[in-house]
């Protein structure tokens, strides 16, 4: 009952993180099914229909069940501790936002057991294909509605907490960057999740109530769905990466033992990225036949995003420049992030070039691109953040040697998995197809082997985190200031942090910076 009824931000943060852990596992198993099928050309294990269900559910589970809840869980734990208050502003709503998730995913995954199986039209849910789904269709739509409620309530809670609950003296430009990036992320969530809800509602009425939004015969247009979907979809990808930027901006200064280079330019860069993310959506649609002016506009606006993103990458590098660096596990993941996310960023610029996207579109190059920003991007930051803060949460140190092994194996295997996909993609292998031409075999086999090894390597992390969370006997206790170079309010309380971190708000003086110093 404690876990069902809890309104405590730490309890709920823990629930969010466990849930996302479980979903990463489920989504990961699905990706292994996909990779196993792609080990050889021809059909090996599963039929194409099931393959399509796997890629669709893999993506929905990873995005809405893995990455997003993980970031919300981190925000639950860290935002109140970083701004110096006792809990989130709306604790009961917080509980609601979490408990929607298991119900929504039970609904979504139950479709696998229905006649006709799960949704198979791809996570982008394009009509008319998605409208041909069977019994899984309305369940998928309603699951997305529920996830939308969860995200919106969670985001409102975080915005309100940050705007209203900061300790005295914690002015906006003293907030740690993780808080800043989450503030902007939450704004994006509130702005675009309702748009997704509207889009899928139109799908629902098109299928069951005779409307013609996406039906050309009735004056609508399937491409209209793509516009509305990607108006949500592109900000969504920043929802999955801005909090990651915040985590990296917290970890690097700690282990470089220097103040973050260009704090305020980081804030402005984040805000510019968020603004630009609303006006680039049609870069996902260069090949559907949008007007030439549209191609140009969306190409240039997309390339513009590289500017604030570049500002960030250079700031991280400048922070490390001549720092007295040490390489504990969180720092390794942060540096891995900077390198590998940047690779994903570069392939993104290539995809932004409308003329060449006609070649790359819907190929494995795209799969390689977004997995570089999602796995060694978003997921490395989540893992790094957990290594960084778990001593504060649990009061014990994780095993550093295993942590380092975990990093190196992950970093190597993830590149083995996804780097070859650039090549097969450029050579013309399409995504979302269970079979391929024989000349792509070698690279696909490498990729599949990498994926299985990556998956296995994650058990080092499972072991490490389970020890900290549940089986603490024999683990070294953590100090209050776990990392020598760490700054910020969360390090002023003991480890493990008390249930209500700050019963009385701390005071942040004028001459002090609350962000990493």
């Amino acid at each position, binding site marked *: 009952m*404690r876990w*069902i*009824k*809890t*309104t405590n931000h730490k309890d709920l943060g823990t629930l969010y993180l466990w849930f996302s852990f479980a979903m990463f596992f489920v989504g990961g198993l699905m990706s292994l099914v996909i990779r196993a099928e792609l080990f050889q050309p021809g059909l090996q294990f599963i039929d194409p229909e099931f393959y399509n269900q796997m890629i669709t559910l893999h993506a929905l589970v990873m995005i809405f069940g893995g990455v997003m809840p993980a970031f919300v869980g981190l925000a639950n734990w860290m935002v109140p501790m970083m701004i110096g208050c*006792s*809990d989130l*502003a709306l*604790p*009961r709503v917080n*509980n*609601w936002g979490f*408990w929607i998730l298991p*119900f929504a995913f039970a*609904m979504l995954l139950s479709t696998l057991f229905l006649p006709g199986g799960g949704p198979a039209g791809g996570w982008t849910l394009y009509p008319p294909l998605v409208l041909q789904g069977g*019994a899984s269709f*309305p*369940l998928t739509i309603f699951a997305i509605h*529920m996830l939308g409620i969860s995200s*919106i309530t969670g985001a*409102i809670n975080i*915005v*309100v907490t940050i705007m*209203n609950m900061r300790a005295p003296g914690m002015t906006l430009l003293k907030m740690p960057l993780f808080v800043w990036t989450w503030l902007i992320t939450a704004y994006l969530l*509130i*702005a675009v*999740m*309702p*748009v997704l*809800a*509207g889009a899928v509602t*139109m799908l629902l*009425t098109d299928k069951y109530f*005779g*409307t*013609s*939004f996406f*039906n*050309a*015969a*009735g*004056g*609508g*247009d399937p*491409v*209209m769905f793509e516009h*509305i979907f990607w*108006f949500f979809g592109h900000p969504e990808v920043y929802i999955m990466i801005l909090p990651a930027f915040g985590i990296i901006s917290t970890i690097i200064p700690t282990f470089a033992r220097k103040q973050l280079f260009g704090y305020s330019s980081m804030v402005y860069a984040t805000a510019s990225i968020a603004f630009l993310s609303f006006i680039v959506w049609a870069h996902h649609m260069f090949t559907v036949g949008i*007007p030439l002016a549209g191609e140009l506009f969306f190409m240039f606006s997309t390339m513009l995003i590289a500017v604030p993103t570049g500002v960030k990458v250079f700031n991280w590098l400048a922070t490390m420049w001549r720092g007295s660096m040490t390489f504990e596990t969180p720092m390794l993941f942060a540096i891995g992030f900077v390198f590998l996310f940047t690779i994903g960023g570069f392939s993104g610029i290539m995809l932004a070039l409308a003329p060449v996207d006609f070649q790359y579109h819907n190929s494995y190059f795209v799969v390689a691109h977004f997995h570089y920003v999602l796995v060694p991007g978003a997921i490395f930051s989540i893992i790094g953040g957990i290594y960084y803060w778990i001593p504060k949460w649990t009061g014990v140190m994780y095993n550093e040697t295993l942590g380092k092994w975990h990093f190196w194996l992950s970093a190597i295997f993830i590149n083995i998995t996804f780097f070859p996909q650039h090549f097969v993609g450029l050579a013309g292998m399409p995504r979302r197809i269970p079979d391929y031409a024989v000349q792509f075999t070698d690279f696909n086999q490498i990729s599949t082997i990498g994926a299985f090894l990556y998956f296995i390597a994650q058990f080092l992390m499972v072991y490490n985190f389970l020890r900290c969370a549940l089986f603490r006997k024999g683990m070294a206790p953590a100090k209050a200031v776990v990392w020598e170079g760490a700054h*910020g*309010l969360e390090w002023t309380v003991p480890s493990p942090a008390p249930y*209500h971190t700050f*019963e*009385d708000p*701390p*005071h*942040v*003086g004028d001459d*002090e910076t*609350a962000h990493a110093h």
Partner: protein
Amino acid sequence: MATHAAPHASANARYFVPAPSAWPFILTAALGSLLYGVSAYLEDRNLGPLPIVVGALVMVYIIFRWFRGIALESESGQYSAQVDRTYRLGMSWFIFSEVMFFAAFFGALYYARELSVPWLSGEGAKALTNSVLWPNFENTWPSNGPAKIGGHFETVSPWGLPLLNTVLLLTSSVTITFAHHAIKEGHRRACILWMLATIALGATFLYFQAHEYIEAYHELNLTLNSGVYGSTFFLLTGFHGMHVTLGTIMMISITGRLMFGHFKPERHFGFEGVAWYWHFVDVVWVGLFIFVYIL
């Protein structure tokens, strides 16, 4: 960095921390049951009405309990100025999310009128679609598309019921403002009377809208099935109507609270939140009246 507790703070008065609560969990379970029941119904899988009915009833009950709990917490003085700000900010952001929800449907309307229907008629670079598939289709609005889905239909004239409804809703925004001034000056009775007037205006609006829908279906052959015009018309006005219904229920509940003696002249955010919501619903209607009915 140095931290020191702010000197005047006392542990428990500082933050309002609610006790653990099972409401959210039950609410979610009920919502899940409702939605699962509806999806089974849509796909003709026979689960019967039970999950839907039970889910809906439990939801209504929990929402009632939850808001009643908040009202009691507020009336017993547990809320500090900080909690008051929390609710204000929370409500503002919630309304912003609602604005974005409507934006999706207004966007669809814009797209249909400015892009998809003209393209189907051969404008822009889309000449071939038109000449190969539907050579006789012309760009007109209202339109049910080149296949004339749903058959010939007529539109609702803006200058009859819709105009009347505009007047009703605009008036109701004025009456709720009078009610707000009354509570601020401590005239509880006047406030209740103005609220009753506002509720009556909202309910009349809904009555006329139902009337309009019946007329559209039976006399104008304007239905959900009338191509993209019918789709945008009914989804926009329909979702707006649902929001009016919700707003009216919210107004009824705060009027009840006023009768029980809740709210003080200087602190009554429960009231103001509902008023904000009502103004929002009103503004959306003005947008609808212009873009759906007149233009």
